[in-house]
């Protein structure tokens, strides 16, 4: 059973300037990271340079990145910067602790820019110590509706840095495998199986034992051939990886009443793990009051890392610590105390994420 294992740690010492390994001509990455830890914004030109450099780095990553335990896996953050810092305080600072983030860094919370700036700088500084998977909110379309775009325009007076970041999002990897036994993705891997059949050419389809009838391809290798350097589409394998949800009441895939998308059931998970010789699926994407949820006889878990989501849900959050023996431990935490400092702003902001903070509409009609 998960239990609270709170281990507060101080901020790491920032190494002296001459030790900086960054290749960026005029950007001192360690200084950027130090500023971001203090929640200071970076200059637009610095963001531009960092995003360009990170793109080059991410371009070399496969759609399926293989990593080794011990590693701490983090679910949705959604711009809750103080809670991200709380995660480092509890789980250890980068690079002393290895991190895998499962996506949804921006939107909803008040500090999407600070959050994504810090994570990108850490990725660039310690590329093998921190991994960032793409979530459904790392998209141009979604960030225009749910706050990140508005926050960029408000804090930088232009949409330029929104363009820098959303262009970078196109390069984020789609999945990570820990020690060949835990498959990690933002939403779920399975519907990929179906849609991949659709995306194959007709001739390729004929190689399938029963083309178009059964979702029969289960291999993770199929993820590797997706062309991921693009906006997340509404349909197809990429959409499925970042959007699908489990349904504990069902065995197979179920179509959504919305007219698009579907859920996956227990048998789908079982088959996927058996075909790929894996033990567990780890994903984020769904809010849970307890901060985590395990389903299907512990074959799948959801990790949620935004406590008191949207500053009003009152939920717990967790990070999942995976050890070298494959054991998994949910380290549960509540909202960082610093959130109280900006409570009033959050109150005003809550129905209008990313917007200009204003007075409460007391005299509503």
């Amino acid at each position: 059973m998960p239990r609270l294992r709170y281990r507060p740690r101080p901020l790491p010492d920032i190494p002296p300037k001459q030790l900086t390994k960054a290749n960026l001509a005029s950007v001192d990455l360690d200084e950027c990271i130090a500023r971001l830890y203090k929640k200071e914004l970076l200059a637009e030109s610095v963001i531009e340079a960092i995003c360009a450099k990170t793109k080059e780095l991410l371009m070399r990553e496969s759609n399926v990145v293989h990593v080794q335990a011990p590693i701490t896996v983090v679910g949705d953050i959604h711009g809750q910067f103080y809670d991200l810092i709380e995660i480092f305080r509890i789980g250890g600072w980068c690079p002393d602790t290895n991190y895998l983030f499962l996506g949804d860094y921006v939107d909803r919370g008040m500090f999407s820019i600070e959050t994504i700036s810090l994570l990108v700088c850490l990725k660039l500084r310690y590329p093998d110590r921190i991994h960032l998977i793409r979530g459904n909110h790392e998209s141009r379309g979604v960030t225009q509706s749910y706050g990140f775009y508005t926050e960029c325009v408000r804090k930088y007076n232009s949409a330029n840095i929104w363009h820098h970041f959303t262009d970078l999002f196109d390069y984020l990897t789609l999945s990570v495998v820990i020690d060949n036994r835990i498959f990690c993705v933002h939403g779920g891997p399975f519907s990929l199986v179906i849609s991949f059949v659709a995306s194959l050419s007709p001739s390729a389809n004929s190689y399938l034992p029963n083309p178009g009838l059964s979702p029969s391809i289960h291999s993770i290798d199929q993820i590797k051939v997706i062309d991921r350097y693009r906006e997340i589409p509404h349909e197809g394998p990429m959409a499925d990886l970042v959007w699908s949800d489990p349904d504990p009441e069902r065995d197979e895939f179920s179509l959504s009443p919305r007219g698009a998308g579907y859920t996956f059931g227990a048998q789908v998970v079982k088959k996927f793990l058996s075909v790929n010789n894996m033990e567990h699926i780890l994903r984020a994407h769904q809010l849970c009051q307890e901060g985590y949820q395990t389903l299907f006889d512990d074959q799948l878990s959801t990790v949620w890392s935004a406590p008191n989501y949207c500053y009003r849900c009152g939920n717990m959050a967790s990070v999942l610590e995976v050890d070298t023996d494959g054991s998994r431990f949910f380290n549960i935490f509540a909202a960082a105390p610093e959130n109280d400092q900006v409570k009033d702003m959050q109150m005003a902001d809550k129905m209008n994420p990313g917007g200009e903070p204003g007075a409460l509409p007391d005299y509503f009609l």
Partner: protein
Amino acid sequence: MHPPPPPPSSTRTHTQSTFRILTTKLPILKSDPIDALHARLGIPIPEMIFGDNLLSLTHLPTNWSLSFSAEPALDLVDKTGSNGSMLRVAYANEWSATREKTSSGIKEVVKPFDWSYSTTYKGTEVKGKGGKCFEKNEREEIPLELLKRRDPILFHDEVVLYESELDDNGISALTVKVRVMEQRMLVLCRFFLRLDNVLVRVRDTRVYVDFEEEKVVREWMSREDKFENVKKNLYMSGLMPDAITVALRDSNQVANLLPVVEHEVESVSLKSG
């Protein structure tokens, strides 16, 4: 030495004249209560479900009350999708076209229901002594001019009942707020739905209480319009594209732009004799 301050209570009450107002605000439900609610209602529960939250208004002499909570509101959501209310996301046709061949292997289909969680909830009424309850009264209206006055607000609160992001296709939210002044009070329970590139819907229940007359007026107003019309109207009102994006998240900015599709007024007099 000062003792530590007591933890903030989840329930607040205020009594004004013969009425008592109560609000309860608690975290979203845990997974077991969500499963139980799912079983009772027979439909999946929105991801942000404040199942313990409550706003209630009680007339103390007669025990008449009107309360707002999530479960009875969700109970009024169309659970079969049979009455023609079924909405589809903007790209549904595109989606099913590409899946036509491959989806045939999927045998299970989620039971249709109104996944936009549109509700016709106007609050839960408990009759008062002598069977007093709301009756239709189209001549009655809520005195907006009196409510526009900046009378001191003695008690106010806002309670979220449920909210869903509709898997990034918009927003669906039911919230209720209250403000109490010396002579009168107003409750607004608002259902707001924005289904991106499809439609915008606002369903308001306003409850007005005149403390001296001990009279309660309840007004129900349902408004909706196509998404493109709302966008066009916001543009016509002089907003720049960035401001339109913001406005589309704010029910206050769009509500008055939407044509009224349903309107109904009821009232009840609770004064004795």
